Each structure stands twice: as C-alpha cells, then as structure tokens.
C-alpha cells in the first residue's frame, strides 16, 4: 500500500480510484455483518463468487461484501447497484439466480421483497417502507463501503473531512464547527459533544490527552454500534482523528466488547490499513499531526459502558465506576484528560466536517440535531436498524418503518433505552424522540434500543426481567445500587409469583426513588427506571397481579390457567399436536379438553390457535402463602 505524504496525494488517490471504476458495471452488494453471516451471508458470498467465475462474468459484475444494511427481517439480503434492486432472504439457489439475472441485466421478479400489507412486489430498496421513511446518513455508508478495504472508504469521500481540517490548519475552528452542529452524545446522556471537546482542548497542556471511543454496547437487543464498527470502522477512525486534531489529543482508545469479534477484526484491519497508508501514526498526510489508536477489549461487564468504569477497565483495573467530579475531561485514563464519546457520535463527526455544521443542524429538531440510529426489535413486522432524524415520533418509527404489529395483537408499549430505560405506552406514540421528551416521559434515550411490545407482554414481567439483568450487572460497589436492585427484583418477583401485597407497591416506589437519587453512577441512577416507568403507566396491571392474583397478559405462570373456550373451539386438534405435555386431548371436531394438572403453561396452544379458543383465566383459588 503506497503511503500518502500529503493532502494532495489523498485527493489524487480518491480521484484515481473513482476513475478506475466503471459506474455501469452492476455491483452485487451482500450484507455480511455478524447478523448477516449468522443467517447465511457467507454462503451467498461463496455462491456469488462461484457463479460469477463459472459464467465468465468477472468483468461484467462486481461483488462487494459489506457490513450490516440494517434490515434484519430480510437477512441474508443483497442489493444490486446502481439501480438499487433489493433481494431479501436469499438462499443458495436464489443467489445463483440473482447473479444470472444481474448478468443479463434482468430483475428476478419473484425474489423481490413483498409488502406484507398490499402483497405487491417492490423492486427498489429505496421504495421499501422500512428504508423509505429513514434518513440514513450513517447507515447508508455501510452499504457502500467494504470495511476491510480502505480504498472503498476513500472512494466514497472517506478521509476528505480529515483532509479538510488539516488543510484549514485551525483546531479551534473544528471545535466551533462541532459546537455549532449541536451534536449531542449518542451514548445516552446527550451531553453536547462540542462542549466536551472544548473542555478538553482548553485543559492545561500538562499530560498527553486521550480520546476514547466507547463501543461497549451492552443493552440487550441493541446493536447499532456493532453495525457501525463492523460495517464502517474507518468512519470512527476518521472521527477520532478529527477529534484529536481539534483537541490536541495524542492517543486514542477504541473500547470494544469481546463479544463483537467481527467488529474487532474489522477494526484491527482498518487500523493497520490506515497506519500503512499514512493516515494514522506520526506525520499524518505529511503534516506534523500525529495520533494513534489502540483497541482495548472489554471483558463483558455491562457497567463498563459507564465512562468512569470504562476508564478503570482500560487501565487494567476492575471495571467499577468512581464518583465524579473529577470528570474524565479533567482526570481520565491514568490521570490524563480524556474525552469519551460513543461510536455513533464519532461516526457523525466526518459528516459534520464535510457537510458543514449548518447542514447537519438542519436535520432533526432544535436542540436535538442530526439523526439517531435505533435498533427496532420486538413485535413489529420489520425489525432492524433504523436511522431517523431526531424529533420524529415513536409512532412513525413503530408504524411506518416498523410496519405495525407483527401479530394479531395490538401494540401495547415501547421500551426505549435498554435495561435502564422505561416503557412508553401506545397512547403516547405521538411523543417526539429527543432527549428531553423521553426524559419527561420517564424513559431515556439510552444508546438507542427500542423494543416493541404487544398485548402478550406483561409489564411486571418486563420490569422483573430488566431488574434481574441489572442486579447481575451492577458492579456492587455502591450499596443502594447493589442492594436496591436486588430488593426491587425480590419485590417484583413476589408480585409476579402471586406473593405480592398491596403495601409492597408503595415500598417498591419508595425504594426505586431512593436508588435513583443516591446511586453513584449512571447505571444505578437509571436502574429504577424500568420500575418507575411501568408503575407510572401500568399501575393497574401491578394491581391486578396483587389484588386479583391474575396476570392479564398470561405471562406470569403462577397467576393464570389456560382453558379451552368450548364455544370457540372447532376441534381442529392443532393445539393437541403442539402441546408438549399432552395436557390437551379430545376428539377432532369437538371442543378439546385441557388437563390443568398436566399443563405447563408454555403458551404453545394459545399461540397456535387460530380461533382464540384458548383463554388465560385467573386461578380462582388464591394460592396459599
């Protein structure tokens, strides 16, 4: 790899790569993030290569293996450039047909995505509702860039933002630009990034400054940082380079979870290539600017996403938070001034620099500029990574992009912000998604997890689930977080198992408020949110659990029993076949019998019944205490 010794050489290289490529040649783009590979993308790549070679199409079709495109529901998928034809859920045979069709300039109509509502086939990716309603400023690059080839990043304008700031030669202008963009930290707390940088830049020049990319994404069901690190690691590297130039930092650390092996692999390759080409290390692009980045792998503690715990972990100590002040920007890793930003924040920096702060600030809402990636999961038709301007409503994401409920049941609530976030009921779906509105509604932005729940979800069970997660993941250093999460879980478990007492509800609320007030770090201070938000919006459900000893969503197994509704049952015997414990019996064409003593309440019958003939009733006799 030739080393770039000046900004002109970088520009010349970008021009040369672009000129070398024939824009008429179709490119098969295969989405192969961890998720894509798990659903079979590696097979698709193999088949595509074989078919291209076997049919002598090597100079007529190009193949690009990229990170995740975000449409999980459709994995493994492929997009054909330049016309944007989208093929979802491809198998080995289908892939061969796609190659064949591309080779002949055709479209394999029967493989196209089909709208579940209208049943019509949609050809272009940009016409699919899931993609159409998004503003993909960051995720779009995932589709254009091969993460292990730095040239594809440079071809797509990569490192031009770095060249721009090096050319301008004024670090303070970069800080001003980021401040003017209004970018706020995407890790959850929403602290203005520009202000953080300014504080770092103004730190007395005693010890070398440090930049950290926080890729310790621990929220269950959230994977936007992973997809950026896997799909476009250079955008993070470029963001950190710009940050280093602006603040005078000399060293960078990317903290990634060990659970993200592909992200680590791609990062290692990206860092090596950037170093070889002269974009990292000393004398970057022939200027006097030097900066290097190393990778630190997290050992699997949720709390290490908290910045002070992360710093301790980077230092090689136990991942435990420490009280602030002093803030990391004053005293961070090994006592050096440190700025910690989330993966997505770093990935936004090149966009701000190249497009200008004003253009960036036009997206989103005032005070909440830019886009945010959410991982939309749960009971919606289209799950996946969703990038939308800040300020859109929850309803737009759930109903337009997500396509509404996946089953027959109505959507009940959305849980935002991971385990420390709260549940927002469907009645509040016109709430705009920004830091302040979510906080006012009793939830948090968090890093962007969004779990959609329908009527079959019990809110007490949800709170119990998250509390179980938090009591395991609390580092245990401060007493109220450690004991508070344990005790909250204990009370929730009591309520969900039918041992709940009315006064426990007040105790739970009181305890939750104190944990929120007194815990040392962000984990503890938000640990009570699942409890407080479900109590706020679904108190009636808690009451039903305690007073009637009944779980309306039929989730808490001690609090309901199944019954076959004789009038509705057609005797189709579907439930008889799925029942694992042989509890349902009965001749065909006649209402079935359900033996309570054998029923294990696995819900299989209720899920499979097409006539809603399985009901979950309250157990009349209240279990003895």
């Amino acid at each position: 790899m030739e080393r770039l010794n000046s900004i002109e050489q970088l520009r010349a290289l970008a021009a040369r790569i672009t000129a070398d490529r024939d824009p008429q040649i179709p490119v098969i783009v295969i989405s192969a993030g961890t998720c894509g590979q798990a659903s079979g993308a590696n097979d698709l790549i193999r088949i595509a290569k074989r078919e291209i070679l076997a049919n002598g199409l090597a100079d007529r079709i190009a193949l690009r293996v990229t990170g995740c495109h975000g449409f999980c529901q459709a994995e493994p998928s492929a997009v054909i450039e330049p016309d944007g034809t989208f093929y979802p859920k491809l198998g080995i045979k289908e892939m061969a047909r796609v190659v064949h069709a591309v080779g002949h300039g055709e479209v394999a109509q029967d493989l196209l995505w089909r709208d579940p509502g209208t049943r019509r086939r949609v050809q272009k990716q940009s016409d699919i509702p899931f993609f159409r309603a998004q503003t993909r400023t960051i995720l779009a690059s995932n589709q254009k860039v091969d993460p292990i080839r730095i040239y594809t990043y440079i071809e797509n304008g990569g490192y031009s933002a770095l060249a721009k700031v090096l050319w301008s030669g004024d670090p303070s202008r970069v800080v001003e630009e980021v401040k003017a963009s209004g970018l706020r930290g995407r890790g959850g707390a929403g602290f203005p990034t520009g202000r953080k940088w300014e504080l770092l830049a103004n730190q007395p020049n005693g010890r070398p400054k440090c930049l950290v990319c926080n890729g310790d994404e621990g929220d269950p069901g959230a994977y936007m940082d992973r997809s950026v690190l896997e799909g476009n690691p250079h955008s993070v590297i470029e963001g950190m380079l710009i940050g280093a130039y602006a603040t005078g930092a000399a060293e960078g650390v990317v903290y990634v979870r060990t659970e993200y092996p592909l992200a680590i692999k791609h990062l290692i390759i990206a860092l090596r290539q950037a170093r070889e080409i002269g974009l990292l290390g000393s004398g970057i692009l022939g200027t006097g600017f030097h900066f290097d980045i190393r990778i630190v792998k997290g050992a699997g503690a949720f709390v290490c996403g908290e910045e002070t715990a992360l710093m301790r972990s980077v230092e090689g100590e136990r991942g435990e938070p420490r009280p602030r002040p002093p803030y990391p920007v004053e005293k961070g890793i090994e006592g050096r001034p440190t700025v910690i930003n989330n993966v997505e924040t770093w990935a936004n920096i090149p966009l701000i620099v190249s497009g200008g702060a004003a253009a960036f600030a036009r997206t989103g809402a005032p005070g909440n500029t830019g886009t945010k990636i959410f991982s939309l999961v749960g009971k919606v038709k289209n799950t996946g990574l969703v990038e939308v301007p800040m300020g859109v409503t929850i309803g737009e994401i759930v109903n337009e992009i997500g396509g509404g409920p996946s089953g027959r049941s109505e959507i009940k609530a959305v849980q935002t912000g991971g385990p420390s976030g709260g549940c927002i009921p469907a009645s509040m779906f016109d709430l705009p998604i920004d830091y302040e509105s979510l906080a006012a509604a009793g939830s948090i932005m968090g890093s962007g997890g969004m779990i959609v729940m329908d009527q079959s979800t019990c809110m007490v069970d949800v709170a119990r689930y998250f509390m179980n997660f938090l009591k395991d993941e609390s580092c245990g250093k401060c007493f109220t977080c450690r004991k508070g999460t344990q005790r909250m879980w204990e009370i929730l478990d009591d309520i969900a198992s039918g041992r709940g007492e009315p006064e426990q509800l007040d105790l739970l609320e009181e305890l939750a408020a104190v944990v929120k007030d007194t815990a040392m770090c962000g984990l503890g201070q938000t640990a009570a949110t699942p409890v407080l938000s479900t109590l706020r919006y679904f108190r009636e459900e808690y009451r039903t659990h305690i007073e009637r000893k009944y779980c309306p969503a039929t989730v808490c197994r001690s609090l309901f029993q199944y019954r076959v509704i004789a009038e509705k049952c057609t005797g189709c015997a579907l439930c008889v076949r799925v029942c694992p414990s042989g509890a349902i019996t009965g001749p065909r064409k006649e209402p079935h019998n359900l033996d309570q003593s054998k029923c294990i309440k696995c819900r299989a019958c209720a899920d499979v019944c097409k006539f809603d003939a399985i009901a979950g009733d309250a157990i009349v006799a209240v279990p003895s205490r």
Partner: protein
Amino acid sequence: MITLSINGLPLTVEPGTTLLEAARFLGIEIPTLCHMDGLTPYGACRLCVVEIGSAPNAKLVSSCTYPAQEGLKVRTGSARVVRARRMILELLLASCPQSKAIQDLASAHDVRRQRFRQEHETCILCGLCVRMCAEQMMAKAIGFRGRGERRSVGTPFDEPSEVCRLCGGCMYVCPACQLRCTFNEPEKAICGGCANLSAPCLEKPGFDDLMCYMAPCAACEIRKD
C-alpha cells in the same frame, strides 16, 4: 480558598476538602460506614449523601467524595436526604441485622421497622478492609471479586495469602460486623488476625490452628451451637 455554605452556615475551606470534612469542621454530623480518615474516600455506603444545588437541579451526592466548590449550597438534613438515609438504613438493617453499628444508626434515625425479607449477611462491602490492607498496610492481601450480588471480599482464589502479615487491620476497621471470624471453616480463613484479639476467640479449643477472617464471630458462634 473556597467558600461554601452548609445548612446556611458559611464556611471557607482549602481546595480539595470534601463536603464531609467541611461539615464535620462545622460540627455537623453525617453518618457514614465506609469512610475513615487516612483512607481514600470510596463512596460505597451512600449513607453520607447530602443535597447540593437548588431545585430543579438539586441532587444528592456522597459527601465523602464530593469536593467543596465555590458558592456551593449544601443541605445535610433536608427531607430528601433524610428519606434516602432512612431507606438505606432500612436496607442495611434487612441485610445485616446483627450489626450493632447498623442497629445504632437505625435507631438514631428512627428507623423502627424493615419491610424487606430478612437476610443474615455478614458484610456490607464497604471496602474499608480492602483499602486498609492496600493503603495503610501496603499488603494488598485482600480485594473484591465478583460483581452485583456475587461481589465479595477475599484473597485471590480463596487461598491463604502469602502477603498477609496477620496485622488484623482489616478487622479493626470493619464498621458493620466487627470481629469476623471463620473459626468453623479454618480453610477459608486467611489472616489469622484473631491472634490479636481477645475472647471469645481466645477461649476456643484449637486456638493455635485458628485462622480468622470474613465471617462474623457472632455468626460462627450461632452456627457452632
């Protein structure tokens, strides 16, 4: 010098003074279990919380770790502080009911009941022993392991420590469960600090083989009987 006010009383302190030290200078009592002069402030027990700032941005911080800041308004006994402190004491009482120190604190704060399921834990993980061992005795024989509810104090891999000098400092500083001992499980004991102690350990048969640490004597008495 930094000027701040605590409960309305103005006070000038040196930079780096914590709110706890400042309050104590004024003679204002703030309960703590994990603080000891001479050891690094840790902020684990949360009992020493005080309220700073004014509404709506008022918040509770642990006074043992929070440095005094110019113009800071501190309230050590506001309703919010008292509510939090009482809840913390109730939680402590539910977990370590035998501890005299916790009983006394609870009584002083008029905590007359505890509404949680009763537990009999022997350690509140205040970290005083760990800090004492590392910072004053320079031994680092004990440390924390595990996290969340599995967090505990002990030596690496529960092996008797080679660096422990049996100084007994860890037991001396223990605020909650004073005089811990594992008489009935000598293989788990590490420091033999009992040798520095008096009755009841001294009167045990086989005292010479005794190694002692990290479970309360009271509990071992109970288990033995």
